[in-house]
């Protein structure tokens, strides 16, 4: 069993897919581990916190070069592993396989894209169908998405969530009471945690989100939340940042974005947040991998190259 998993990891590290039967088996094992995790999963520093990956496999490999290999480096990924990029399947399965292999050295929390409805629109469903010939792998992965934690907390001081805060949530303990093992709802606390955005221009506390789900929250919401929960920082992802990371609200909220040259055209850099044993924080920037231009020529496309309006 163990050597099987190592072999599968080796395969995935080369950006090659494992069989559908192997995916099913992997998901079963992953479920057993994830079901034990809390809605607010405790993580010990030192840890390297990462943002959206969006199927950009070679850039994930670059991330591991820059941040150190797992399990040597302890990692926390804040969701959005799939959709948009060419290799959502390989990316997610690699992270999942690493989780099964080294459960205490990598933490995966749920992003808004870890959802049946979203992956049908934004590419993961199509990629699974194309690479495996049926929707089975997509279904297995979506079931796993349901088991992913909603958030993490590092040494009780740094709160990590994919999107942001919710008007329904004042304390970390309230998050623990959510029944998370379901498709991301269209509204409510669980949805907000994965969809909200901080709004640096906001004068008032809460606003409706232009995304159509979640909320915008201002400094007047973030700071009391931090204070009431004994936190020093909220780390989140969910929004493209050209400089890789962006600090807001007197450096109490940070957006970390880990997909460089997003969608192979945005020209942004990516970042990871390295937190040491004393909760010292340092940001490392990295650019996209040269493998991307090679890969897009050989990867089977859906209907020609990604069709983006220019």
């Amino acid at each position, binding site marked *: 069993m163990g050597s099987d998993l190592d072999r599968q990891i080796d395969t995935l590290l080369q950006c090659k897919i494992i069989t559908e039967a192997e995916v099913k088996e992997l998901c079963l094992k992953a479920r057993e581990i994830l079901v034990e995790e809390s809605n607010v999963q405790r993580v010990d520093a030192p840890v390297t916190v990462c943002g959206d990956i969006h199927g950009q496999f070679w850039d994930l490999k670059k991330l591991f070069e820059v941040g150190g290999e797992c399990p040597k480096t302890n990692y926390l990924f804040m969701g959005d592993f799939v959709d*948009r990029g060419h290799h959502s399947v390989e990316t997610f399965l690699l992270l999942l396989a690493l989780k099964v292999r080294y459960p205490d050295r990598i933490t995966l929390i749920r992003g*808004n*894209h870890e959802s049946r*409805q*979203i992956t*049908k*629109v*934004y*590419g993961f469903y199509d990629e699974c169908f194309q690479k495996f010939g049926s929707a089975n792998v997509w279904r297995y992965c979506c079931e796993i998405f349901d088991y992913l934690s909603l958030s993490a907390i590092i040494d009780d001081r740094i709160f990590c969530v994919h999107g942001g805060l919710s008007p329904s949530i004042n304390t970390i303990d309230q998050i623990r009471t959510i029944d998370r093992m379901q498709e991301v709802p*269209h509204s409510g606390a669980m949805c907000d945690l994965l*969809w909200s*955005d901080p709004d640096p221009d906001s*004068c008032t506390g809460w*606003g*409706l*989100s*232009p*995304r*159509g*789900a979640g909320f915008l929250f201002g400094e007047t919401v973030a700071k009391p939340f931090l204070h009431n929960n004994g936190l020093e920082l909220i780390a989140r992802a*969910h*929004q*493209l*940042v050209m400089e890789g990371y962006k600090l807001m609200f007197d450096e109490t909220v940070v957006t970390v974005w880990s997909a460089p040259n*997003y*969608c192979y*055209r*945005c020209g942004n850099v990516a970042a990871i947040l390295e937190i040491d044993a004393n909760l010292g924080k340092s940001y490392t920037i990295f650019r996209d991998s040269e493998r991307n231009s090679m890969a897009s020529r050989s990867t089977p496309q859906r*209907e020609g190259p*990604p*069709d*983006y*309006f*220019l």
Partner: protein
Amino acid sequence: MDGSNPHREGLTTLHHDWTMIPAGKLVERQTPVLLSNGISAAPVFDEAKNSFTGMFDYGDLMAYILILLKKMDPPQDQTLEMRDLIQKANNSQSVPLGEFPKLQAVMQTTLHACGLDHSNVLSVNGNAPVLDALVKMSSNSVSSLAVLDDQGILLGNISMTDIQHVMKHLKSSWLWISCFQFISKIRLSRGVETGEDQYPVLDVSAGSTFGYTLLKLQATKVHRLWVVQDNGSVAGVVSLTDVFRVLSKLIDN
């Protein structure tokens, strides 16, 4: 085009009857202009400057209405431009004109009570080609359709604006892909432009209040929100036209 009319100088020779809104007029008088001509934006002509100062659209009106809900003192300067009003209001400064208690009441009414959850919703199946949607919109003189799956659950929205986008970029082959695939491409494109992905379905429920619906229309900057039931099936649609029809009744009274 009547060349002797200074308002028309400089305009194109298209056969529009450009509807113009004099700058500096109160917003209550501008809305009927928009509604009666069935347009969603009109150029604002400033006679003093003898030029066009901008477009007045439903977005401005909505922002204005929302701000009216807050109690404001009238400013001393009564010659404020419409655009300045919105700007000031957005910065939480004073807005002229009195309060509208009737407006408050409407804002708290549910869409169901407003009768806005029984519209006849025109739709297309997600698997149908985009061309079918275009034909349906055209023959029914509507600017958008709900895109539904086989069970009648709302998947998203396809509108003339989206299709015009296609035409502009000459991707005519997209007329033959399915409506769902089309929605997907639109969403993929928009998400990478803004750096943030939007929820695929922009909707409200029959129990949502009119005020909430306005807020959501303004936040998401769309022209319509689908009214859905708990199971995701469509009960109606609230467009900007519906919103201002409701609001205009208050203004007339």
